[in-house]
């Protein structure tokens, strides 16, 4: 598989405070790559850094940041904005805050095409209707004349997805796209995303904190913790053989319906996520880890478990067994 997005040793800091310290991941063409982790682990800023959308006090550094062979680090803002919304698009968690309340759905959708392709208004609106149909919005002709507040949460997210697809992007970055939605609507939206991914051959970088979403959507998974990718594997491998103590801990925390025994405590991870300052060294998980040893404060090796599975830990593969 060819890499569409390649991120090598990405470091992000905000006013000198480190948020991501050396994250690497590769999204292949036509594949769904899930970036999973808890709040503050750096998954959203990683996506924003790829899109060139970091806040003004944010700085990014990487040994490679390539989209379809183009070095994104070398692009100026104009070149970047030609890519953004065009060949790479992004959708966010809260569709209400990412849609402009003062414009109709149709005019916001049409603007994408008019700006990137110079398409006429009528043609752009036709395309908007076509895409709303594709994302299974009923009566799309009516919807393009409506304002965001007239739509339900699920519909807004469908509009966001349709808008992101206006220019036939190759990469779609979705940051917690279903977190604000009810479970039944979440299932509908994820189903739509999975179908679009298959039908259009999209590469999707899906950011989520929900291991259930990861299991059902991902081809490949990267687990982030305290600004690092601590484990990366195919979805099948990650769930069958989680290696990093954090991945194992996280899996044990999830209550699985139908497998719950009453009055038996859930697995949990003691403590909380550390503050990673500028000089933070060693494994970010060591204070919460049952396997921690003195050398966890030093440089941590990335260990491979076959070509498709690696993790960042002092422990040898057979030593992380619970």
């Amino acid at each position: 598989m060819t890499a569409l997005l390649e991120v090598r040793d990405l470091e992000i800091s905000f006013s000198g405070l480190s948020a991501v310290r050396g994250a690497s991941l590769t999204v292949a063409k036509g594949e769904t790559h899930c970036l999973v982790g808890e709040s503050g682990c750096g998954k959203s800023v990683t996506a924003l850094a790829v899109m060139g959308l970091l806040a003004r006090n944010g700085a990014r550094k990487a040994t490679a940041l390539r989209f379809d062979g183009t070095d994104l680090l070398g692009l100026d803002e104009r070149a970047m904005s030609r890519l953004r919304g065009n060949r790479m698009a992004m959708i966010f968690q809260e569709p209400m805050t990412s849609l402009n309340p003062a414009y109709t759905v149709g005019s916001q959708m049409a603007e994408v095409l008019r700006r990137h392709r110079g398409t006429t208004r009528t043609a752009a609106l036709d395309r908007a209707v076509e895409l709303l149909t594709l994302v299974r919005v009923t009566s799309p002709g009516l919807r393009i004349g409506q304002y965001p507040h007239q739509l339900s949460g699920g519909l807004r997210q469908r509009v966001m997805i349709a808008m992101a697809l206006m220019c036939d992007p190759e990469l779609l970055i979705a940051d917690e796209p279903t977190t604000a939605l009810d479970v039944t609507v979440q299932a509908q939206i994820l189903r739509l995303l999975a179908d679009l991914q298959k039908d259009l051959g999209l590469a999707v970088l899906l950011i989520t904190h929900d291991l259930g979403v990861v299991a059902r959507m991902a081809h490949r998974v990267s687990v982030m913790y305290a600004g690092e990718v601590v484990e990366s594997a195919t979805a099948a491998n990650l769930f069958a053989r989680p290696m990093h103590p954090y991945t194992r801990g996280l899996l044990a925390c999830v209550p699985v319906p139908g497998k719950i025994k009453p009055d038996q405590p859930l697995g949990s991870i003691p403590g909380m996520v550390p503050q990673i300052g500028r000089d933070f060294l060693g494994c970010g998980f060591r204070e919460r880890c049952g396997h921690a040893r003195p050398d966890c404060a030093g440089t941590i090796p990335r260990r491979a478990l076959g070509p498709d599975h690696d993790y960042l830990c002092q422990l040898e593969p057979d030593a992380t067994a619970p």
Partner: protein
Amino acid sequence: MTAPLIEVRNLTRHFRVRAGMFSDARPVIAVDGVSFAVPAGDVLGVVGESGCGKSTLARIILGLLEPTSGDVLIDGKSLAGLDRRERARLIQPVFQDPYSSLNPRRRVRDVVGMPLMAQDGMSAAAARKRVDEMLARVGLDPVMAERLPAELSGGQRQRVAIARALVLHPRIVVCDEPTSALDVSVQAQILNLLSELRRSFGLTYLFISHNLAVVEHVASEVAVMYLGRIVEQSATQTLFHAPRHPYTKALLASVLTPEPGLGIPETGLGDAMPDPANIPPGCRFHPRCPVAIDRCSREAPTPMHDRRGLVECHLEGAAS
């Protein structure tokens, strides 16, 4: 059968909501004829999607909202007849967002001690001792007592909220989405803490959540709400293993378990969204129901009680 600690009879709550400056106020029916009973020591889980009325129900039972009609009985006594202090000694809340439910200007010690101050007759020294005990019980380090809420993590704040709820030794705790704002590893800590405290203090919980897996983990009985009504209620194991209402089935089918390769389930629900300002005639679920028959759009089903619990569906009535 023990006498129920909480009994709710035919509870209804309407709101009047204006859709815009010039439009007339429309009635919104948030809770529409809800009845249930919770025996002491049990956990009733209430699940449903946003707008189903579960938080309105919680606020009524906490005494924060007056019902439009119907009664809440606590230990056989009407909630409406209790004054604020008595109510606070019986029932306490734990809310979803620990960031907005704690006073940012007060130290943890004062936040937790406030209910003791509000009640009569506890000396400062005794109150101080009780606060320290409570903080220890919820797993907070003594140094946390002097901190401000802003200096704590989300999980620690929720522990403070729990300590405040329990400091008066209430009998009932209403938990409204207590872990929804937390990360999954912290959620597990808080759920385990709530279970342990329930056992050691002999508490009764009303546990409201949209997360079915969480409810299955904590609740002994589950009520499924849809547009203001309980459409199905039974013991947790029964409900999760043999759901009867099509809405319960769809909710359960929507849960994404961490099992790779299963794909995304088809819920069978249409695009129609439930709107409490515009409740459909007949069965209120029929516009989204994958198995609706003619009768469902014309005639509202009545609750059917049997040994498995309660279900409100024409198809279930016909089948049995």
